[in-house]
């Protein structure tokens, strides 16, 4: 049992240094948690994707629309239970900076195909009945203060209203997703509303369907259904590629893929630099204690005890710094998530992240502690006392 009181006294002898070193460690560990959480957020959608859903999209481009007639053809394919049209609307609320996703989709299919979308306020019936109704994710609703019954005016950038006015949606429900593949920031409204407006000339924009979401019948063979759909449109007019929901989500991750890589490599470098600096400070501090070691040994403390004191000093310092960093990451989770908001939803500091941060902390503690501890163990009393420093 090492003398913990001595460990504590040694650490707090130079308070400023103790706080500054622990502070640097806290920052490095906080950064580690933050960066890992960002990457986790990106991949969350892919991991949570449903196995029985397929996405039919143009093989040519994200921005190419599929003919309406494809819907009935896909529905007739063996192994397909339900088909839903799904269009990116690309509008904004009041100002271009207020970004959240809006999708036009077949409202009855949405409820049937996406059981993870759970209303926390309002009702599905109300959403189904009213052509101009929409449901909004909790995050967006709380950010802009939307409540059930409110009217939400959206300016169509991709689908402008011909008379220059806004598209008005009435909030029929606020939803929360039980899985990460659907975020809590989206506004869903009736595909029919968009279709009718385009047909009547009330609005303008690309005709056709962005993607079709397919729900397979239970027991259907996934690869077979996928190749049946792809084969049907091989000769055009628009070639399609059918993927699983996971692959569909993964394509967006790979498209912005260099951004998280970029952030993590910079952040990783930063973290290593900070850790090295902290490490160096700790090693320097240990060297300054050489004379204290001599005194301890002269007083009759064993080699093991002296080495223990130095090791525990390092571990305790790291526990303070790393612990503060972990606490900071956990306690700022909500505010960081709110800051990233509707543009980058899904930020979550997972238990796995916290554990790996704790592991990194322990590692630094050991690396910084073992060297000086071993040296202290082997040092003779005379050598240690002779040193001034």
């Amino acid at each position, binding site marked *: 049992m090492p003398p913990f009181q001595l460990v504590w006294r040694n650490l707090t002898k*130079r308070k*400023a*240094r103790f706080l*500054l*070193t622990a*502070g*640097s460690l806290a*920052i*490095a560990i*906080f*950064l580690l948690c933050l960066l890992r959480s960002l990457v986790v957020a990106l991949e969350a959608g892919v991991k949570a994707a449903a196995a029985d859903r397929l996405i039919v999209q143009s*093989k*040519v*481009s*994200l*921005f*190419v629309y599929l003919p309406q007639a494809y819907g009935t053809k896909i529905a007739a394919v063996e192994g397909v239970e339900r088909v839903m049209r799904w269009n990116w609307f*690309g509008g904004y609320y009041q100002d*271009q900076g207020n970004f959240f996703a809006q999708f036009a989709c077949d409202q009855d299919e949405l409820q049937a195909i996406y059981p993870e979308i759970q209303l926390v306020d309002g009702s599905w019936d109300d959403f189904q009945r009213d052509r101009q109704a929409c449901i909004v994710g909790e995050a967006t609703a709380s950010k802009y203060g939307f409540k059930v019954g409110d009217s939400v005016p959206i*300016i*169509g*950038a*991709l689908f*402008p209203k011909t008379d*220059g006015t806004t598209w008005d949606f009435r909030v029929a429900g606020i939803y929360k997703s039980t899985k990460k593949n659907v975020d809590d920031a989206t506004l869903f409204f009736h595909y029919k509303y968009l279709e009718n407006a385009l047909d009547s000339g009330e609005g*303008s*924009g*690309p005709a056709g369907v962005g993607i079709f979401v397919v729900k397979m019948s239970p027991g259907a063979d996934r690869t077979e259904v996928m190749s049946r759909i792809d084969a049907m449109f091989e*000769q*055009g*007019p*628009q*070639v399609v590629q059918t993927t699983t929901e996971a692959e569909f989500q993964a*394509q967006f991750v*790979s*498209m*912005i*893929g*260099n*951004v998280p890589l*970029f*952030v993590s490599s*910079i*952040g990783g*470098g*930063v973290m290593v*630099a*900070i850790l090295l*600096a902290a490490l*160096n*400070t700790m090693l*320097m501090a240990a060297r300054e204690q050489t004379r204290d070691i001599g005194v301890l040994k002269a007083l009759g403390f064993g080699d093991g005890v002296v080495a223990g004191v130095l090791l525990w000093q390092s571990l305790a310092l790291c526990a303070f710094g790393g612990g503060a960093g972990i606490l900071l990451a956990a306690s700022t989770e909500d505010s960081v998530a709110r800051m990233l908001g509707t543009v980058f939803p899904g930020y979550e500091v997972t238990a796995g992240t916290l554990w790996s941060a704790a592991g990194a902390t322990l590692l630094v503690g050991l690396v910084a502690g073992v060297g000086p501890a071993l040296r202290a163990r082997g040092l003779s009393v005379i050598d240690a006392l002779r040193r001034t420093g």
Partner: protein
Amino acid sequence: MALVPLSYNLRSLVVRRSATLLTVLGIGATVAVLAGVLALQQGFATLFVENGRDDVVVFLRQGSTNEGDSVFSLERAQILMKTLPDIERPIDGPPLVSAEMYLAVRREKVGGGETNVPIRGVQQGTFRILGDDIRVVEGRAFAPGTDEVVVGSKLADRIADCRVGDTLVLNTTPFRVVGMFDHPGPFKSEIWGDRDRLAEALERPVFNRVIAKLKDGVDLGELKERMESDPQVPCKVMTEREYLGSQTTAFSFVLRVLGAFLAAIMGVAAVFTATNTMLAALAARTNEIGILLSLGFKPWAIFASFLFESLVLGLLGGIVGCLMALPLNGVDTGAMNFQTFTEVAFAFRVTPQVMVVAVCFSLALGLLGGALPALRAASLRPTQALRRD
């Protein structure tokens, strides 16, 4: 009114060279990260803005923010091209106006994965307007009306099927790559072909934008206002420079925020390290301060002296950081511009502004890191300081 000789501080830094080096490297790494991110932003923004021309105007559909959103029907484009009096129409040749089709298509990257590459269907007018800015560097230009394309010089190494002689399949139609072209601006990340052939292959019977060279002396402000409320073809008019600039705002903003965020976090850690080093310096030199005080130097002179020393540390860090960031200058990189969802190739640019910001930042770090130790040094009393060894 005597200042402590500056050579005292400079020599002190040399004597404690390992601690000095650690601090300088810490500040340097921080500054290098900031400079690197800013250099990325500069490279990206100048690629667009510097290579946009003021005498070329871009017509977009009203309310759209980029050419991906913008659509002109064949008929509207014709009206614009044939009747607008402000367009330069040489007596001995065709008018300097061109309607283009634009689409970001899904292509495979050479190293695997997918990205979006812009395809531009152009009329011969585009070449007349841009003139020598577009240079064929390998092979030849595509023949009008044929299934041939030319690729931008930045694509060959990054995107599959983009070498001269390759075949690119678009939807169901194969296109032959007959040449490679260069352009100082963002066009070198695009694939160009005949607008009518591409429109047919991609089933997009529309134009996305119209570009034109204006007659000398046309009042741009007046033209913008007039076209906004044009009864036949209301549209948004921008110079090419303004248009390209507007495509960079979101990504530039993200890079600036990212740079500021990383710099802030690392800055705090660097200040901690600097303070630690200066505190250690102070502890080792308590005796010297006592001597200085008894020689008659006033506490404020001691304060100024220590602050100067940490400013020198900051400056050295800034220089080291700039030196670390300098090799990045001119290095090619690619990033997803999420405003247009396409990948753009550009080079880092470590501009003088970037370096000025970096050095100012490092001086601020030195100042903050030196403040506390300098205050402590100034508050020592001569007897107290001399007594310590």
